[in-house]
């Protein structure tokens, strides 16, 4: 056994797994790729074997790389294995073990260290996308099939949402004034670039239902993508920034519209050692974090309009399996007047978006999406409701690929509620 590897990999946690296989039917990659190394118990075993020096570190790579990280296995696990922790430990070890090419290094630095953390640059991306779409370039690209040689970018391009200009963060009013329920807004970086409209609607919904929402300027990226890529130190740095940023205010809740980011925010305490000051601060921060559906379910939503559509819900994996929010979105959806909620078969299975999985592993991601779309086609909805930007784009992509974009629309739960409440963007 190599002591160092046992330290770095979450070797101890692998012993919680009794290899019973209850995770197999819940694992999208096992179902799609049909091999044991693409199952949770298979990956846990690979980690244990690597830690014990029985296989090479590189033997873990394919299994670990192709994990979506949806953590559906944790929800069904009868022995409460901390799969996410084992996975992250393996991702980090593999990252350190890899001689990265200059290009990959460059992309990583650009994406994680510069773009995602920098509000100005994100706003620039947002503006470029906006220009790309309003100037009709997107339409031309689509119509002329300019991206044909690169199928994945062609499809992703089609699936890209209509971008709205994101708003500059206003300086908040007196932070200690307390009247209604005080809600700090967490806008997220990808969300703010692609879906600033949804964030805007979310703020207006909460403001319209007895809450006072503040979008504070010192917030930064949640660190989810960095974390999933094994960039531990960067994740910790971002976590500290966010924790400190929100400590300056007396919020009852910190809300976000992104299943994945919310999960990362709720797992901040795991980044720090128990008993340390930062661990305490993280616990306090996390105790306030809520998904938008949790707050909307608390509110007595004032519905004004019917939405007479057959709808299915595609939950965000991290909203369910990490945040453990299962019922709230459904409670809301079922209350929307006129809307006919239909249960999507195997809805808890990941759609294959999984952060940037669909960019890194396009082919595999499409195999997983195809399983999802098979069930969508059986359900024949007119509306797919989502709760995370990644799933949103992926489901849109699925609809495009099946040639159903005239029949099925994809909307975030916030958009649907806003529409039913007659709430518009500001």
């Amino acid at each position: 056994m190599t002591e160092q590897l046992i330290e770095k990999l979450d070797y101890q946690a692998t012993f919680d797994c009794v290899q019973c296989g209850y995770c197999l039917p819940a694992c999208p990659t096992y179902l799609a790729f049909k091999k044991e190394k693409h199952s949770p118990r298979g990956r846990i075993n690979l980690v244990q074997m690597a830690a014990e020096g029985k296989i090479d570190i590189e033997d873990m790579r394919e299994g670990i790389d192709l994990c979506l990280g949806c953590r559906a296995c944790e929800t069904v696990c009868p022995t409460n294995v901390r799969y996410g922790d084992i996975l992250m430990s393996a991702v980090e070890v593999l990252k350190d073990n890899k001689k990265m090419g200059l290009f990959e290094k460059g992309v990583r630095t650009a994406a994680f260290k510069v773009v995602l953390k920098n509000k100005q640059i994100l706003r620039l991306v947002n503006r470029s996308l906006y220009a790309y779409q309003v100037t009709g370039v997107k339409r031309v690209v689509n119509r002329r099939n300019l991206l044909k040689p690169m199928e994945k970018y062609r499809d992703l391009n089609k699936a890209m949402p209509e971008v709205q200009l994101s708003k500059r963060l206003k300086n908040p009013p007196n932070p200690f004034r307390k009247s209604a329920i005080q809600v700090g807004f967490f806008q997220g970086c990808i969300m703010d670039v692609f879906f600033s409209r949804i964030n805007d609607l979310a703020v207006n919904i909460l403001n319209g239902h007895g809450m006072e929402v503040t979008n504070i300027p010192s917030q930064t990226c949640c660190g989810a993508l960095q974390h999933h890529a094994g960039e531990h130190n960067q994740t910790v740095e971002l976590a500290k920034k966010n924790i400190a940023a929100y400590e300056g205010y007396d919020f009852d809740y910190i809300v976000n519209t992104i299943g994945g980011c919310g999960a990362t925010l709720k797992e901040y305490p795991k980044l720090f050692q128990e008993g340390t000051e930062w661990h305490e601060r993280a616990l306090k921060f996390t105790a306030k974090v809520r998904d938008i559906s949790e707050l909307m379910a608390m509110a007595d939503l004032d519905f004004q309009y019917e939405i007479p559509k057959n709808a299915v819900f595609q939950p965000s994996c991290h909203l369910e399996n990490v945040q453990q929010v299962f019922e709230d979105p459904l409670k809301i959806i079922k209350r929307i007047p006129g809307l006919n909620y239909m249960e999507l078969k195997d809805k808890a299975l990941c759609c294959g978006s999984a952060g940037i999985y669909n960019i890194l592993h396009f082919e595999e991601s499409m195999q997983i999406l195809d399983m999802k779309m098979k069930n969508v086609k059986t359900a024949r909805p007119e509306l797919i409701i989502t709760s995370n930007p990644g799933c949103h784009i992926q489901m849109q992509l699925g609809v495009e690929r099946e040639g159903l974009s005239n029949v099925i629309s994809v909307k975030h739960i916030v958009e649907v509620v806003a529409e039913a409440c007659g709430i518009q963007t500001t």
Partner: protein
Amino acid sequence: MKEKIIEKLTEIVGERLLIDVDDRVSYGYDASFGQYMPDYVVQVMSTEEVQKIVQLANAYEIPIYPRGASTSLSGGPLPVHAGIVMDFSQWNQYLEIFPDDLLIKASPGVKTGDIHQLAEKYNLMYAPDPSSSSICTIGGNLAENAGGPRGVKYGVTKDYVLGLEVVTAEGEVIRTGGNTVKNVTGYDLTKLLIGSEGTLGIITEATLRLIPKPMDTKTAMIIFEDLYTAGKSISKILTSGVRPSKMEILDQNAINKVEDYAGLDLPRTAAAILLVEVDGDTDVLMKELHVIQQALLEIGVENVQIAKTKEEEARLWQVRKLVSPAIVQSGYTKISEDATVPLSKIPDMFRKIDEMKKKYNLNIVVFGHAGDGNLHPTINTNMRDADEVTRVEDAVEEIFHYAIELGGTLSGEHGIGTMKKPFFPKEVGEAGMVFQKAIKQALDPKNILNPGKIFPEAGEKRLVLKND
């Protein structure tokens, strides 16, 4: 040589031959203990493929290990002598019901849960219900003769199989049994092959018997102040004239773990609780539970709580379901045993396990299928503590020996596999061993079908939980 085998296997299954290290190591475990490294993994999809691979293995004398979903708790599918793992989990395409004949035919990779669902659509039931039904394959169930909670009323896998298609060690295809309940033509090879753990032939199709689905169920929880009375109650209930469909017991340790975990208002001070389900015509169920209640009164057991609604009933069964997650502790590995004893000996077994707990200073909880004497003492162990692992091995050995002394058996439903083979001679005796080995020798003279299972090999005298 290896290249040649790879070439030939590729000819048979194409891309469904797996030879990378990460793949091979992933087919070297099951839900029991030990990790092995096969040379090849083949994901078979037809009888013809199985036949060709067996013929190849026979020619080159390469061991073959059939494997379903690898949920086995006894080591049945482990590739202990390297060779070929034959993975059946992806061959799940054939599943056909013949409702008028009360039969289902299935390929070996079909999940048991899918068989349950299909039968229920026709108001029928496939009775065996191992708790891993949503994952395990029918092929694995047949190989290990799996049981389940309903065993107390309905029996186990072998009671529901009418016929099999089997590939022999020579690579011939034979059919055993047929499509009828009554069939006495020749030896009962079907029953010989079920539970033979893939050591006599490889099952490639099964014809399963269905029965009418019971209309309804009702459940009672019985609370005991001492284990002895709990044990006595089991026989009392089963001789009361009512046949419960499930009888599950939890000892005090298990009750408290579930209570800590989920807070369901269970009686923490009770020595044990027994969950008793009856099934059948709705109108009769209440009467049946009253019969049980009356019988128990005769031995002074008064605390019988009958679930009034379906929700209450579901909540009671939730208790049993939660035992597994409730008893695990992070960093500790759960070891489940299934020695089985005659009903009247259940109190003795409980006492023995309690003694082991103290003697070896172990964390043991007991729960399981009380109605058929199939208890599941479960131990939480730190597998990195060599001393503790040895104590567990010693304790489990004593439990095995005691079960045999009581006239019971090493395994009620998990199988012998690798785990229990050192104790096999003790249960069947010298002559019994010779007889069983003669069958193996006759049907698989080259010992290529799942070698290293059931029969102890030279020097294997102890239970071993970890191989390195």
